[in-house]
């Protein structure tokens, strides 16, 4: 489809972007454009002005921090994948980024754009929830950080407020193991379900676990019963993964699961269990 006309502005710095955002009516930030442009083309959005933040150097890059790892908002997936630190310290997130779209999508799409867009079927909500990430934003009133547990509010809705820009995502280093697996939609390539797992492991025992899912619900959500079960299990304890998987829907009502033309909510629940099992299995494998 062909988009309606819009103005295009390019910001060189976060300050400039914030100024432009507050001065321009009906403006929308543009990063990789891989969610926004399809949305405009299909007639679901019609912003008057796009403010391109993709070229702001300060916002791009993966850095090792004392606590863990920082991913700048405009870091493309392809660049993020080059980071060894990310793979080491946030294995579930690195897995997920590697599973997004195809090469072209990974060359353009950005981590910040992904979390700002908050598509329920995107691959980052689950692993970011598992990784206990923090989303950093900046607005006219300065910076604030949003714990990931408070970040995803509803379909395409997040805790980012009007006039704020995502600057980066901070992830505490994973002291143990993690993984992300997804059931890829045969048509769109997005996640029919995706499950991210992070295990804190000590002496062969799982001290605590965080497990997050995307694709299954209207927004990214943690799988509490799976986490509770995993805490205290041993990493080579027989059917741990299978038993964990079984609990993926334990506190889920069927209506909470997404239903679309390809997949009923009932079957999506089944996939959620299966992929929770696989994600745990993979994380356990890596822990061993």
């Amino acid at each position, binding site marked *: 489809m*062909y988009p309606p006309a819009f103005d295009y502005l390019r910001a060189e710095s976060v300050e400039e972007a914030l100024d432009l955002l507050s001065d321009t009516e009906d403006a929308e930030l543009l990063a990789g454009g891989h969610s926004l442009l399809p949305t405009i083309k299909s007639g679901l959005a019609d912003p008057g002005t796009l403010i391109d933040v993709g070229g702001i150097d300060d916002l791009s890059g993966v850095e090792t921090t004392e606590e863990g790892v920082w991913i700048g908002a405009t870091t493309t997936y392809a660049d993020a994948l080059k980071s060894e630190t990310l793979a080491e310290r946030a294995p579930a997130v690195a897995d997920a980024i590697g599973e997004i779209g195809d090469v072209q999508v990974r060359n353009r799409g950005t981590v910040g754009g992904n979390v700002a867009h908050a598509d329920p079927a995107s691959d980052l909500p689950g692993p970011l929830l598992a990784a206990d990430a923090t989303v950093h934003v900046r607005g006219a009133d300065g910076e604030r950080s949003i714990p990931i547990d408070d970040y995803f509010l509803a379909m395409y809705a997040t805790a980012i407020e009007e006039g704020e820009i995502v600057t980066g995502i901070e992830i505490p280093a994973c002291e143990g193991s993690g993984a992300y697996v997804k059931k890829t939609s*045969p048509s769109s*390539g997005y996640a029919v379900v995706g499950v991210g797992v992070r295990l804190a492991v000590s002496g062969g025992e799982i001290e605590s676990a965080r497990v997050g899912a995307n694709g299954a619900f209207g927004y990214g959500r943690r799988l509490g019963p799976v986490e509770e079960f995993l805490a205290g299990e041993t990493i080579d304890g027989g059917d741990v993964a299978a038993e964990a998987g079984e609990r993926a829907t334990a506190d889920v009502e069927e209506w909470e699961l997404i239903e679309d*033309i390809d997949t009923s909510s009932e079957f999506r629940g089944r996939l959620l269990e299966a992929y929770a099992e696989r994600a745990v299995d993979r994380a356990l494998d890596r822990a061993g």
Partner: protein
Amino acid sequence: MPVETVEAEDVRAGEFAGSAVKRREDPHLLTGEARYTDDVQYPRMAHLALLGSQYGHAEIGAIDTSAAEESEGVLAVYTHEDLTESGIDGTMPAADPENGVAVERPLLARERVRYQGQPVAAVVAEGRYDAFRALDLIEVEYDRLEAAPELEDALAEGAPRLHDAAEGNVCFESETGDEEATEEAFSDADHTVALTVANNRVIPTAMEPRAAVARYRKSEDALIVELSSQNPHSVQDRLSDVLDVPEHRVTVRVPDVGGGFGAKLQPYSGHLLSAWCAMALERPIKWQARRTDDFQSMVHARHQETEIEAALSAEGDLLGLRGHIDADLGGYATGGGVGIPQGTAAMLCGQYDVPAGHVSVRGVFTNTAPISAYRGAGRPEAAYVIERLGSACARELEIDPAEFRRRNFIPSKEFPVETALGRSYDSGDYEKTLDRALEIVGYDGFRQRQEAAREEEKYLGIGFSSYVEVCGGSSGDMEGGLVRMNPEGGVVVGTGTQDTGQGHATSFAQVVADELGVDYDAVEVIEGDTDRVPEGGGTAGSRSLPMGGGALREAAGRLVEKGRTIAAHQLEASEADIEFDDGEFRVRGVPDRTVTIEAVAEAAYSPGDLPEGVDAGMEETAFFTPEGSTAPFGTHVAIVEVDPDTGELGFERYVAVDDVGTQINPKLVEGQIKGGIAQGIGQAVYEEGRYDENANLATGSLQDYAMPKSWQLPEVDWESTETPSPNNPLGAKGVGEAGTIAAMPAVVNAAIDALSPFGVDDLDAPLSEETLWRAARGETR
């Protein structure tokens, strides 16, 4: 092992045919040099965009175009009335079936729309964006009607009627075979096996959406249309018909084409209206369909629902076959829509010796995009039905499915044959491809392996498809081939077939180079220009090599004969003593008295050097008609694993052994087969065009419609046998569609076999995870 390609320069002259010469079109296509219709630009070119109906079934009231007309850059806005006012009737030729009704197909909707996306109005504007912006400003009064998107809806009592002429939404009914003999066979049978088989709707999705650029030169009254098409001559014909201009004033050219698969055989409203607008506005007009336009208003394919039943002896011999096909035509009947299901009916004997058969067909209108040809056009539907039935018979009679097939094959010594349903097969050796496929796949040990895997809760299944199809032109078909040798020895050849990715420039050059004994690189192939190539039938039904290659070979042969006359004159020998070999004319028994064909060609353009009575020039055109169609065949075997807990299907093995007659270029054959398999697996596992109950297309984009990607497809172990066709001089059978025809039943049969421990004996494609998961739980969705 994939076929190894060879460089043409490493092939001995005269041995090009049969060699896997590297495709000469690839550098052009892969380096971005290719020029598609949308790359064609002219000064003052304006853009055409079409407004598609928002609804699947509605009466159209007033259409207010005033706001659109005032929109920036807009040159004109047209509705159906404007077409009739210009003196044309504003329709495309209607399919006129025997035993049925013809319904008008308007270029722009008149009074009613019958599928979502049906063109309603047209905008021409300076820029493409201007045109699309204006589309949104056209106001159409729709009075929505109850819709019938499914066959079931359209055939129900009290169903909304789409066309006044078509009672009960039935467009036509037909039958083939001998009903009485069939009933007798059934009354004598020890067993009968019945099955209902649905061929799911698929949406042909070529990489390049439809496009056209039309120019009108007023001073010459000449119309030149460049478009993405499979059949330039039929487009020329259609343009002349619809626009009421003499055919000789119409030139059709085809730039590079990014895939057609049958859906680009006939011109659509957009192509025809580009030409009409070019004449009305006297400006070059470009129409480039968007992906969504192609999804909604290009033809769809396949959708048929079939009841089929076999009569069998106690030992498992097929005695008879009877059935009925309900074929979805969509909102309007195309020639393909009417012809394809009748072709399906005629193909239902498959590879089997069936003494008696009878199949009836009913073509039904629904509120969906019109159905027409897609790779295989009628034969994939038939192969799917008969190969599903074959496996069902084997299961019911507890005979091994490979053995059941073997026992019922038409014996190789019986060819040519005509089946009980009226199709002729030219040649075949069905056991050979089956045997080889079983050997490659290791069938001997498979059942044990399957048993052992089941113990470990791994569910493997094997599926067979022993297919035959009929293609490659017919005795009622003709194709033109032109071969010209220039004075300096270069060869230019042209035919009316149309490459859309197949590699004609490679294979036709191989055929002609051998025939003339010249260098492969000396031969240039032209297609896609009605001014430069002789009349022909385009590329469809895998006819290009058997027909176009046949025509070129015949024309080249005539050229050699002319050369022989000239050579005899030059060598001062009698024509009967001139031998031709390796590009040289020789006097028999006098090895040093020779002249090359290039030297002969040079002489041919110097009238003084020619014998009396011989016209100057070295050029021949042949119109070739084969003895009959060709019947490629083979056996494909799929081994899949299905996880009953998630419904996930994985391919363990896919083996294909195909016989497409004599192969001119084994690499091209391999590519055609593998690409074809991808499309067959697409229909089996991923693809389905779906409408909601209001006849809105629910799968109208690549986000929602699962065209398979490479990672979703198995590696294919491919081998071939070569049983030449007696019906054309090359011995070649068509290869463009065989893979697609073969693949679907192999995969679905394999999935059924995998889930048989769960009591599954029937599955409907596409085999989505949910479908398989539910089947393993004894449910349907």
